[in-house]
């Protein structure tokens, strides 16, 4: 096991623990905190994949905006005050389905002989990404902006209180 590999396993373990925490914690706030852990872990994975830019995006977008949004939402919906289990009655089925799916997927990705696999993660130049985003992928980019706009409009319209509410 190389140094890098060891590093990967650590990060992976952290990420998986975070994810596990998200889906098993008995308290919503704990879940949210676990989510942050998992997201940070993923960010670290990105670094291992030589994509520092994405790691930064990850930390900023997720670690910052998304989690805070989620925490806000928890507060607003008083999620902590809800009595009873956070898990529904179909947990065993869920576990079964997830494990089956996991086994299938792991089997599939490990059985596959990926074509053109390189020894190591290649660094993608951030300038190239920038260029591509505004040339080749300009249309998706524009559409993504529309998606954001739609989400924005939707969130505002739906969440805001109306007169008399």
């Amino acid at each position: 096991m190389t140094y890098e590999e060891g590093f990967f396993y650590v990060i992976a373990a952290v990420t998986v623990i975070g994810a596990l925490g998200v889906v098993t914690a008995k308290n919503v706030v704990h879940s949210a905190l676990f989510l942050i852990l998992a997201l940070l872990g993923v960010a670290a994975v990105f670094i291992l994949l030589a994509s520092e830019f994405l790691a930064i995006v990850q930390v900023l977008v997720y670690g910052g905006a998304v989690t805070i949004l989620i925490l806000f939402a928890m507060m607003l919906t008083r999620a902590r005050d809800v009595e009873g289990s956070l898990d529904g009655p179909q947990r065993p089925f869920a576990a079964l389905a997830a494990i089956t799916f996991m086994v299938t997927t792991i089997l599939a990705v490990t059985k596959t002989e990926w074509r053109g696999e390189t020894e190591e993660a290649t660094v993608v130049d951030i300038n190239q990404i920038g260029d591509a985003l505004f040339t080749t992928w300009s249309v998706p980019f524009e559409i993504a902006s529309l998606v954001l706009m739609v989400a924005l409009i939707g969130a505002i319209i739906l969440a805001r209180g109306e007169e008399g509410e």
Partner: protein
Amino acid sequence: MGMEQAWLIPAIPAAAFVFLLIAGPYLPRKGDWVAILAIGASFVLLFPVLADLLDKSDGTEYVAGVKAWEWVQFSDFKIELGFYVDPITIVMLAVVSFVALLVQIYSVSYMHGDSRYGWYFTVMCLFAASMLTLVLANNLLFMYAAWEGVGFCSFLLIGFWWEKRSAAEAAKKAFITTRIGDVGFLIGIILLWREAGTFNIQEIIEFAENGGYDNTYLTAAVLFLFMGAVGKSGQFPLHVWLPDAMEGPTPVSALIHAATMVVAGVYMVARMLPVFEAADPVALNIVAAAGLTTVVISALMGLAATDIKRVIAYSTLNSLGLMFVALGSHSVTAAMLYLFVHGFFKALLFLGAGSVIHATEKQEIDELGGLAAKMPITAATFAIGTGAMIGLIPLAGFWAKDEVLVVADHEQNIAAYLVILASLFITGLYMSRLFIRTFLFAARDQHAFDHAHEGGALITVPLFILGVLATIGGFIVFDEVGEALGFAGGFGQFVFSHEAEEYKFHADTAAISTVLAAGGAVIGWFLWQGRAEAATRIRETFSPIATVLENRFYIDSIYQFAIDRVVLTLGAVVAWFDRNIVNDTAVDGSAGLTYFAGFEMKFLETGRIPNYALAISLGIIVLSITLLVTQI
């Protein structure tokens, strides 16, 4: 005018029918004169046809006249509207048109004042047309069509007074019963056609005589044909409709249920006799057996009947049975001779009975009596009719019966012969009873008696004419008479199946039959004279037998039971099955099953997101695993 134009004979009444149907209600006297003129014309036209036939023939072989139009024709399938004239036809035509003419004339008076007077004559025209067509048809299918046509007219006329429940029921019974026979008739026709490829009677006969049919096949086919005759001519076991048919107006009984329609079966078998003969002998034995059975049971039932018309109806059955015995004995001559004279004396009896009914409005012989005083002409002619029916020498019936006895003696075994002889005695018994109870001794219903009177000329003249014919009609068996009338010889040389027959007087047979018949009549006199105490005593002594007879051997009851309990129950069961099994269970059930499947399935939709997500997950898991397993 000749045999080629014989088609005019039925065509004229047919035209009259259509005319009356449309214009009848607007004509003076409701158009009865149209009907009479039409049938009169038919009768008159008979003579040129007959003359033509005699002209073209040499006296031993008769040339047949044929005229045919195509009715349906494609590929090698052909149905013709064809007409055929030969001696048998002529005899039948004569009976039909003549009796019909007399009956029509009689009806003018008899039906006078009836609310459906015009309708009566309209239907009578249709009947005449159908009956004449039946007689003239050259092929079985055309004959079948006319056969059904006369059956339909019979239905209409039996049910003429349909407001009476019994009349409506009798009409229904007659139609359905004959219809059952017709099932066989039609099957028989098709069976004969199937091998011969033609419906033409002469061609079928030729085909059969040349051995074109398989023997068993042909036997089956002719027996099916005979079923038709059994139904139409009221032979056992389909005889039940005929006594009930007396619900119709009496002239109708005279024409249709005595002289013409009911003998159509005899006529048909006579026409087809060569085919019957070509089949296995068992076929004709069955014909004879059916005839014999009918002869016996009808005679016995006649003993117990009390309705004047029913008694005559039983005598008709008796006569028809004898005709079939004759046919079963290979004798067209005897059968046709009997048919010929029977037409006259039976019509006479019915018209006489009609006269009585018209005068007294009573039909039960127990309520009549002594009418001879009031209605001498009727009584006299009725006596002639009775005598002819019994077979007293020299009345017409005697000669015919004699012929039948001779051929039966010749062809059938001794038992059959004896049975016929016995029936002669019984016939003598009940016919004399009829006459005695109706016309002689004291009136039992004084009121009816007081009102009774002889009818007008329209009633008495036909009676008189028929009376004469019933007396002398039998003499045509003699060559001399035939020659005098312009024929080559006696009846036997005009109407025959294989070779002309010379009439021979069989003294022994004549003696036995005369003794038996007259004996019957004489014993009848003793039994039913005065207040009929003797008869009453006998009845009480043999009351179980009498009950059986009075109930007509329970045959009607059995049929009624079969219809009510078996057929209608079957109908009800099938209807129940259809409603509850086929429909409610199978059809609605499968619909219900579909509905239920939907009902169960809808609960998959729980409304809860985790369940929905689980469905999606399971969907992709199953999809992935099966895709991977099956494709790799």
